């Protein structure tokens, strides 16, 4: 317990300290890397609610990541071209305001998660993995073949979206925004795990029969978890698109789903700060090893294999040991 808290504090400080140091040394690229790590960690925190707490191995979280990205892309593209999204029956215009974009991203991905979850949660095990993968791929091919928003080429946004009272063009400010969102969501996810809902959801992962026999429906618990999980990953998608000022079908690809899952597994499935550790390590490896070799994924794969075989609790499990029940 004590040790995991220490690890969590370290991980929590790691990103802002990195960003501030990079600022002091005038290395804006490092700030961007820290921002990317924070946003990918956020996507992983979303998946971890379904995967870690609920035991739902979703291989389709790219669907929500991409929907969040396209929510940003579509709203901002209409705003920068001064064309409304639709005029009848009522007028909907684009926007460059981050809070509105986030809200739309959350709502759209939550609705998609409700639909996908309602259908896929009737299956389990490998079928659940396949059904979620199929939904992700459906959206991937749809985004490629829909010409209105760039199709295969994706959508470019020329200027980063705005946040009231802040200059989002400053890399450090944008990092602060992304990190603040991550911190808030971590706070929420931490409370969720200890709340009545978290107790029941995690019990349904351990033993669904037990949960049914105390009068709780595992399907309902899992569906709500899947919706919350999708909404968080969707929010991360909107931020990720804003970081790159670019959205493309790649965000919907199954490789993206796999990467989000890698963050969670590397860091520690079901551990609150697991995705933070996983995403930070991923970015570090991508930067360091990617500079040495184009084929750095081989090393990533080797590392992942080691974690899965020898350190089931991921990095956090390795350092902090078995999870302690919080009474």
């Amino acid at each position: 317990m004590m040790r995991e808290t220490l690890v969590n504090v370290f991980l929590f400080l790691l990103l802002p300290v990195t960003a501030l140091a990079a600022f002091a040394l005038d290395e804006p690229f490092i700030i961007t890397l820290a921002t990317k790590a924070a946003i990918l960690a956020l996507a992983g925190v979303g998946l971890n609610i379904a995967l870690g707490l609920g035991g739902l191995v979703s291989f389709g979280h790219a669907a929500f990541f991409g929907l969040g990205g396209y929510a940003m892309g579509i709203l901002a593209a209409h705003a920068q071209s001064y064309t409304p999204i639709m005029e009848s029956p009522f007028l909907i215009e684009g926007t460059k305001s981050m809070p509105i974009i986030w809200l739309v991203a959350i709502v759209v991905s939550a609705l998609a998660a409700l639909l996908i979850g309602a259908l896929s949660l009737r299956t389990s095990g490998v079928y659940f993995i396949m059904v979620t993968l199929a939904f992700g791929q459906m959206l991937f091919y749809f985004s490629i073949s829909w010409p209105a928003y760039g199709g295969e080429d994706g959508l470019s946004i020329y200027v980063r979206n705005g946040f009231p009272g802040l200059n989002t063009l400053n890399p450090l400010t944008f990092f602060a925004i992304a990190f603040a969102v991550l911190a808030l969501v971590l706070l929420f996810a931490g409370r969720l795990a200890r709340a009545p809902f978290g107790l029941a959801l995690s019990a349904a992962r351990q033993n669904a029969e037990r949960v049914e026999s105390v009068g709780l429906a595992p399907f309902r618990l899992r569906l709500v978890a899947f919706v919350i999980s999708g909404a968080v990953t969707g929010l991360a998608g909107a931020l990720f698109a804003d970081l790159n000022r670019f959205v493309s079908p790649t965000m919907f690809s199954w490789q993206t789903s796999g990467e989000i899952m890698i963050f969670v597994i590397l860091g520690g499935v079901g551990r609150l700060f697991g995705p933070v550790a996983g995403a930070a390590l991923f970015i570090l490896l991508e930067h360091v090893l990617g500079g040495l070799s184009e084929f750095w994924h081989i090393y990533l794969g080797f590392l992942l294999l080691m974690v899965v075989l020898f350190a089931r609790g991921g990095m956090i499990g390795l350092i902090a040991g078995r999870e302690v029940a919080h009474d």
Partner: protein
Amino acid sequence: MTEQMTDVLLDVRNLHKSFGALKATDDVSITLRPGEIHALIGPNGAGKSTLIKQIAGGLRSDSGSVHFAGQDVTPLSTVQRARAGLGRTFQISSLAMEYTVLQNAVLGALGQSGRVMRFFAPVMRQAALRAEAMRALELVGLADHAAKRTSDLSHGQRRQLEVAVALTLRPKVFLMDEPMAGLGASGSREMTGFLDGLRAEAPILLVEHDMDAVFALADRISVLVYGRIIASGTAAEIKADPQVRVAYLGEEDAA
């Protein structure tokens, strides 16, 4: 036939279930009155597990009905039947193994409270749920082990926890599937003494292989063979029943 409807807490009427040509449950009726322990015995393969699933939910009957406290629960799911007042324990302990003993009991209390869609307040700090969970743990004698991880419990303690979780549901009826399974002689005696007192809380439909326990506890005994109830009565009546002796108590030669 003479039983008054109002007296009966669990009323199983004319249940049938066939798997192909096999009649797993063949016109079974069984009742449970307040304060009693009704034991259901029968040789392996008699259809006890099938019958339990039909009563608890999880397996649809071909025909017949199940009533709890006057409410027809036949169309209801396992979850809804638990909410309607069925406290079930499993033959093989079915617990959340990563949780502490207390967390398992709190889970039961939480299910009973119905307030599960709460996303912020820590559940283990909720005094009412904790108190209800501790009451159940004290009753079964597990209060001292409340902070232990469930996977670290002995087999006997898991059996006790199984009963404690059922207790937190404040059920109208207990449905217990071999609570003595795997307990040693002393564990069995302890559990027998405990169940004896439990009948005041709610009546128990007890499926059990341990004949000492059955004869010590049961107000009534029903004998299930090949999906049919071949005899029903007090311990003395069952012991004397020639059909039971042949079919179940293994005294073919004597008969």
